[in-house]
């Protein structure tokens, strides 16, 4: 037995050691890949993918194609290598239509190695492709299974429901039988009951009708309530606050303006120059979506929403060429001012310095854009009454000198300099 135990003890020892070792190794390895992944996502994905060509070539197999030292130096500064006449570098540059790869001199050697490790790891996962493929297949089967399960479940529910109905029917039938047998007794009881109740109700009703003040009060209450409801309804005719139509592209301001912090002006530059804030033309989208395909969320495929932009500008992501068969994106207009009201974005954004969010709400959190403000005249007027004029603007110098209020040190609002006059907005 001792032998057995010592053997077991030894075994346990070696096992624990080897486990520990294994753990340590995997730990170290995981660390590298994880950092590599972060770096890869932030620095490389704009132009590269592991297993497919984006702007730059697919990275799979790069460690086999090139020694690690070479790769490090390439990623550091490829142009320097080309300039130095490195044969492989020059060949690679030529092969890729002389596309210049960004230099990453800020990355340390270790960081680059981590990236390479990450790529290798991804590559390995991809190499396990067939296996993963089967896994994926299994997954697919699983999800199909889930579907059948759901259908089976539904069938079960239906069957159960039918069973319940049948049972309940039986109960009803037996109850009816009981009623039939005890008809007379029940009727008698009911008659007694209704007589009592009727007298109670009619008493109350009669008393109510007799009390004219109460009647009057009730009528008044109704009238007040109705007119209140009517008034509110009428005031809101044509007010489309909260209007959130379905757009042809599921564009999310939350991702663009919120998560990615793209300035409003990048897309809606008109707001700073013109009366129209202007919806960006598709070529503005293409500035980024030329490379940003969100394929990491769609199993390596281009996002179907981004594909709509490609469709609009007739861009072929495979060949990276533009065709002539363009078609504009027909967005649904959310903010509709009536034709008789003139509104100029640049007056408000540039001159008055109003934040976009003041009128458009927390756009950076909106998954789908909706009308935040009521856009009624009352709403405009309230703001004009409260908003102070930017007295630093040289345009207002003369007005400021002339304005009595200011001489007294009071503030000057838009309303005071004619901001409420009809012709300022209606012409």
């Amino acid at each position: 037995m001792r032998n057995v135990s010592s053997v077991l003890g030894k075994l346990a020892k070696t096992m624990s050691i080897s486990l520990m070792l294994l753990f340590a190794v995997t730990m170290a390895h995981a660390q590298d890949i994880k950092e590599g992944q972060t770096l890869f996502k932030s620095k490389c994905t704009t132009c590269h993918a592991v297993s497919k060509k984006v702007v730059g070539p697919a990275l799979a197999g790069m460690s086999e194609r090139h020694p690690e030292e070479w790769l490090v130096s390439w990623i550091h500064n490829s142009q320097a290598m080309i300039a130095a006449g490195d044969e492989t570098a020059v060949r690679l540059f030529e092969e890729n239509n002389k596309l210049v790869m960004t230099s990453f001199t800020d990355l340390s050697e270790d960081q680059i190695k981590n990236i390479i490790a990450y790529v290798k790891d991804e590559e390995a996962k991809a190499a396990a492709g067939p296996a993963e493929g089967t896994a994926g297949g299994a997954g697919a089967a699983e999800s199909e299974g889930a579907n059948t399960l759901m259908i089976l479940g539904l069938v079960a529910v239906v069957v159960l429901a039918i069973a319940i109905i049948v049972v309940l029917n039986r109960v009803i039938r037996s109850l009816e039988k009981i009623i039939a047998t005890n008809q007379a007794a029940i009727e008698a009881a009911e008659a007694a009951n209704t007589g009592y109740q009727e007298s109670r109700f009619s008493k109350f009703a009669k008393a109510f009708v007799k009390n004219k003040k109460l009647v009057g009060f009730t009528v008044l209450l109704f009238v007040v309530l109705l007119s209140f409801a009517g008034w509110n309804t009428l005031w809101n005719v044509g007010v489309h606050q909260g209007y959130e139509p379905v757009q042809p592209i599921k564009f999310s301001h939350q991702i663009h303006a919120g998560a990615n912090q793209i300035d409003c002006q990048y897309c809606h530059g008109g707001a700073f120059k013109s009366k129209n804030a202007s919806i960006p033309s598709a070529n503005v989208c293409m500035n980024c979506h030329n490379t940003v395909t969100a394929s990491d969320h769609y199993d390596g495929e281009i996002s179907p929403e981004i594909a709509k932009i490609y469709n609009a500008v007739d861009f072929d992501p495979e060949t990276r060429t533009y065709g002539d068969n363009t078609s504009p994106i027909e967005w649904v207009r959310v903010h509709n001012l009536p034709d008789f009201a003139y509104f100029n974005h640049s007056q408000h954004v540039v001159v008055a310095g109003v934040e976009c969010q003041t009128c458009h709400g927390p756009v950076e959190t909106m998954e789908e854009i909706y009308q935040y403000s009521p856009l009624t005249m009352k709403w405009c007027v309230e703001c004009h009454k409260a908003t102070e004029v930017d007295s630093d603007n040289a345009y207002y110098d003369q007005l400021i000198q002339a304005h009595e209020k200011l001489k007294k040190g009071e503030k000057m609002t838009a309303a005071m300099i004619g901001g409420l006059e009809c012709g300022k907005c209606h012409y």
Partner: protein
Amino acid sequence: MDSNKKYWKGLEELQQTPAFVEKSKQEFAEPIPVEDVLNEAGLSTKTPRRDFLKALGFGLGAVTLAACNRTPIHKAVPYVIKPEEITPGVPNFYASSFNGQSVLVRTREGRPISITANPNSVGLSQGTDATTSAAVLDLYDMSKLQNPQIGGKDVEWADLDKTVIAALNKAASAGKQISIVSNTVNSPSTLAAIESFKSKYPTANHVQVDAVSYSGIIEANKLSLGKAVIPSYHFDQANVVVSVAADFLGTWLSGEEHTQDYVKNRDSKSLKSGKMSRHIQFESGLSMTGSNADVRIAIKPSEEGAVLISLFNAITGQSVSGGVTNKKAQTAITLAAKELITNRGNAVVVAGSNDVNIQLLTNAINSALGAYGSIIDLDNFSKQYQGSDADFQQFLASANAGQIGVAFFLNTNPFYDYIKADDVTAALAKVEFTLSFSDRADETASVLKAIAPTSSFLESWGDSSSKEGYYTIVQPTINPVFNTRQADQSLLVWAGSTTNIYEFVKENWEANVLAGTGKVWNDVLQSGFIYKGTDSGSSYSANVDVNAVSAAILTLSKAIAGEVELKLYEPSGLRDGRYANNAFLQELPDPVSKVTWDNYAALNPRFAEELGVGENDKVKVEANGYAIELPVVLQPGQALGTVSIALGYGRTKVGKAGNEVGQNAFPFARFANGSKQLESKATVTKASGTYQLAQTQTHHTIEGRNIVRETTFAKYLKDPNSESGRFADTHKTYDLWNKFESPGHKWVMAIDLNACTGCGSCIVACSVENNVPVVGRDEVRRRREMHWLRIDRYYTLETSEGKLTKEKEIAKADAYDYEDVTVVHQPMLCQHCDHAPCETVCPVLATVHSSEGLNHMAYNRCFGTRYCANNCPYKVRRFNWFNYWNDSRFDNYLNNEFTQLVLNPDVTTRSRGVMEKCSMCIQRIQAGKLQAKVENRKLKDGDVQMACQQACSANAIIFGDVNDPDSEVSKALRNERVYYVLEEINVQPNIGYMTKVRNTFEA
């Protein structure tokens, strides 16, 4: 001092006809059926309760249902790839040119919406004529062809090219002529294209002919000065101008440029320096130029030559026989000659006749006056009219002889404007292949074998050279809307060239125009023009055999002398009929008669009385074997025994707006001495039936109030304040209202009555800028024209015994012959009164005052009581009786999606039932202020310009901020001549007028 002169707008007002008196009492021209309803069955019948409830229920239900449509879903469709230069909502300006004038085309999101003068240009740099402002509407004309046609059927360009080239080759191989018949082509590139066409087809020739021809002047200059050109005139150098039947401020040559120069000697700046030119006009019909003259003498067309002979005699002291016998004319000539002689070197005589002999005599006079050089410039000559009537006759003869194989027609319409259309039909029947480049199937194009529609100038690359040394560029502002191709491109294609027209124009400029100027193509695209000429020409001396010429003139005069003489003239809107489908121009009132949508026979009231015809009657006019019936206009100022008829009307195939409007008067013209002439002997007889013209003349009467002020130059020199009669100088005023404070800006206007010629360009510019609808003839008849700005024309009678000034003498007016009238033009628009009467009566506060001195009109607030119009002393408010933009009754004007692209997107289109009026182009004021705010600076004088101001080549309208003491308008309003219309009612108008000054002989 109040003037005791009596002004009147129409004969009805002068004679106080019962109909006029009755109408003038009413607020609206049409009776409003309120009283009928009240008096008739109306309220006295009992409406059964059930019927009432039924009607109420139905009404309520209908209204609810009508209101229950879903809010429409608006699409916002951005560009796919936005052109870099476009910011939606911000206009772009492109330098281009129209009729040889360098202009700026304003586009919004790629569509042209207005045309204004290029302020940096030489020549006409301020203001455009009415046709230029209106030209933008022609781009959006639905009556244009959308495809090339062969035999009236749409074809592809490739098919048309094949057919044309086959026809050309056939003609060329048969040795037959290929003729390109066009109006004047002064575009260097088109001429180059024609040259390259000619080199491919050596039998090709180019015939130029103008519907209203000036070939007499060209011929006369060729004979007497050795230069076969039309000179440029610099009226700013002329202290004395004598015009014999030349409407030189209107349609004669380049009227707008003449106006700009002419007014320089008559506007407030000139008056301040104590200078004013004198203008004497001899003419038969009262033209716009005649209405501005200091002295105007009515003569018959046959006397034009005699007047010039007398003038020649008086100036040179010779005694050529055949002088004028008319007493009034004789007196005027003696005085005019004295003036001309004293101002030798600064005086000029112009004659409107197209007869070579009359022009020769005019040259002799001008030569004697030393006008050649500074005033008449033969070196930087005009290239606007180079047509030769003789060449076209030659073309017809060749065609008749079967020598012409192919004929192309470019911008010319002989089936409409030739004297005898039958001759053209007969001649063209012998031409194997005929083609028109017309943009529509007009009178000529529709009978030819094929049409190769040319693109509008707003869709084309091109150029023009309206003056020697002056080149302007035409650049497209929009892609061709229809499947059209510009004519010069077609010619290049048929000549076998594959050059794109853009490359062709560019290369032509680089080789021929830009060489040596140190400028490159891109400079021209920005500046719009190149001028290589000089400011004035060198001196010339005319070599004329005066006796022979006078004899020839007398022969001609005899040929046209008669009981009744006919004078044809080019109207300022439609011109020779080119613009007949332009609704803006059709609705532009004639500067003098104020008739819209028709031509008419203008007769002197006294003469009409003799003929037994009155207002609304029709007459039959016969001359040269052609007769038409026309409605009569009793035109004060018209010479007795004459009838004037406008050309350009009576088109049959021009489009929805212009078809069958008026009668064609071209067949009245005749050929004499090798040129087309517009005078002839005629008979006028009363015709049956009546016809009501759509006249804006007396629509807005002013009840004889003292609203036009006029003085003479002599009086002005003594006292600049003379006759301006400012009420405030002599009266103390009391206000019911508090003073209206305008701490920031105060927008005001100054209008110089002495500069305004009444041309009406401002009206069209205003309509284009402010989306003022065209209402059509019927609505104008009902006095519902929508123009925000009108030009009131007032007559005063003048007799040989002195002006008929006193009220009592007006009663005697019947005894006068109505030949001697003087005219004042007064632009009238919303006066933006500080104490506006319209504001106080509006029950819903739809019209209110702004702190910038403007009278605002909130359309969406107005519900159409029309109290404001009733209470407006100036009658400038307009009521929308219809949804003119969306009503099938106005289909022929602007009611279709395509034509509506001309609308200015910054201005609301008003709906039925609301009032509107001049807003002082508030959209421009707001835009100007915003620009200043964005640039963090003060608003400068001149940053904001009104549409009417921009269109005025006379600079009669000055707009600005009166709170800025250095602004042009402040300076103008400090002028002594300034008065305010109806100042005495103390509505405190913000538009100051400057007294009209007339430089008369009597003074």
